[in-house]
């Protein structure tokens, strides 16, 4: 446990740089302001407006982008500056390092996504069901994205453009084409949760609640497992 905590603290320090937290915190603050603006515009259907806000700004942009920036840096930065060797060349099981990177990225991503989006959703005037649905959808989305982008940061040298390509091209475009492709996008499950909780129909939001809960968790477990596997085969600079 001591070794895990030492890894976690070190990775948290590396991931949560002041610049990153400030920039992405500002993005969250902007989301709160957007929610407030929506609420002040006195929407006809407040629940629908709240769902559109969480879906359009939160699940499509804020959650994946913030998760990408933090999680891909967990191993990406250490690879780039040559410090990964100080964690890798130690007599510890690789899963500890993979899990510590995942936990450190979660620690900083969760408050910067869940809080502003839930506050923003509440400020739109939406009901409690929408806010609760947003909290669950965002939390599960963060879980899956963080695990995926941790693995991506270890696997490729320029994780940010690759991650953005996944978010914008795959999830934003290809996955919209049909349910088959949509099932390969995390957004389909987070939208489904929000849609079911708020009882508002959303495109790509047709998965059942158990599926929408289980799949992001399974993706997270599989991605952390893959990161563990890759760490054993990684070419450490």
């Amino acid at each position: 446990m001591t070794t895990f905590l030492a890894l976690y603290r070190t990775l948290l320090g590396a991931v949560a740089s002041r610049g990153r937290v400030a920039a992405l915190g500002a993005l969250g603050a902007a989301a709160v302001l957007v929610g407030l603006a929506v609420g002040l515009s006195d929407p006809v259907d407040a629940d629908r407006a709240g769902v559109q806000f969480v879906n359009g700004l939160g699940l499509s942009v804020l959650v994946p982008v913030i998760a990408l920036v933090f999680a891909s840096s967990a191993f990406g930065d250490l690879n780039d500056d040559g410090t990964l060797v100080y964690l890798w060349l130690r007599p510890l099981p690789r899963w500890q390092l993979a899990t510590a990177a995942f936990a450190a990225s979660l620690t900083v991503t969760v408050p910067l996504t869940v809080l502003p989006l839930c506050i923003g959703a509440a400020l739109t005037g939406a009901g409690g069901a929408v806010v609760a649905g947003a909290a669950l959808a965002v939390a599960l989305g963060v879980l899956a994205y963080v695990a995926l982008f941790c693995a991506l940061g270890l696997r490729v040298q320029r994780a940010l453009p690759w991650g953005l390509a996944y978010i914008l091209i795959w999830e934003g475009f290809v996955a919209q084409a049909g349910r088959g492709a949509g099932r390969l996008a995390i957004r389909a499950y987070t939208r489904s949760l929000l849609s079911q909780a708020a009882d508002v129909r959303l495109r790509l939001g047709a998965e059942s609640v158990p599926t929408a809960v289980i799949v992001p968790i399974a993706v997270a477990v599989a991605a952390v497992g893959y990161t563990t596997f890759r760490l054993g085969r990684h070419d450490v600079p």
Partner: protein
Amino acid sequence: MQPPSPSVRAERLSKWYGDVVAVSDVSFALGPGVTALLGPNGAGKSTVLRMLCGLTPPSQGTVEILGRNPRRDVQASRQLGLVPQQEGVFEQHDALAFVRLAAVLHRVADPEAAARAALATVELDADAHQPVGTFSKGMRQRLKVAQALVHDPHVLILDEPLNGLDPRQRLHLIELFGRLGAAGRCVIVSSHVLDEVERFGSRILVIAHGRLAAEGDFRAIRNLMDDRPRRFSVRTDRPSDLGAHLLGSRIASAVEVRPDGQLMVETGDAPRLRHELAPLAAHIGARLTELEPLDEDLESVFRYLVGPR
């Protein structure tokens, strides 16, 4: 009785990146003591060291650290300390936190005390709460040495550890590596600075063009180079006469008399020169004051081994 197994064993080690061969068919076995890994920049030294630590897999061949595969068996790193070549460290940590982290991850019984002792060994102040990001290059090098020593490993691998150090710190670390080698640790130090390597000790591995060019005591290596002419400096009151007689008796293959009277002699048969020079000088009535071999230092060995073929 079985001979003691080596601490580090590399067997037919090769590494290539696409069409570029970085290391080719390198084999050696090292026990306790200091071994200098020598080679020009880009010769493949760092690649060999990275393969020894398991940081990169060999394309071919095997590595063992105390009988374990460092790539597959994380327990191999329990007895392994590495000073990597790159300067990157956890910039926000202070020196004590950085070295204590290594101690904690190695499950050292008292990480705080071990970290303080390791920092004291490299003459860094454990109580200076200065972020290591503000450290000079020399301080970073010593910090990296401290984190490699903190768990008292049996095998210590140091990639250009003296870069950026001032002469006093260099001497201090050279003595430290010597003490560790004498205490039974297997210390492998890479360098491309020859006078530095000469002070580590006489055991060398020479890597040139990705291949192992030589292994062993560098003086013994030089002695084995029978095909290379040896150069000597001779001081005498009659350099021209002595030079002519050395050529005439075919002891020397070339001679040169310098303006200051120094006689430079090149010979393919150094033992004969040593044996016959004094009688020859006596025979012609020359007074011999000095006979000094000029190419038994590491630099000349290195020049012969890695120079253009």
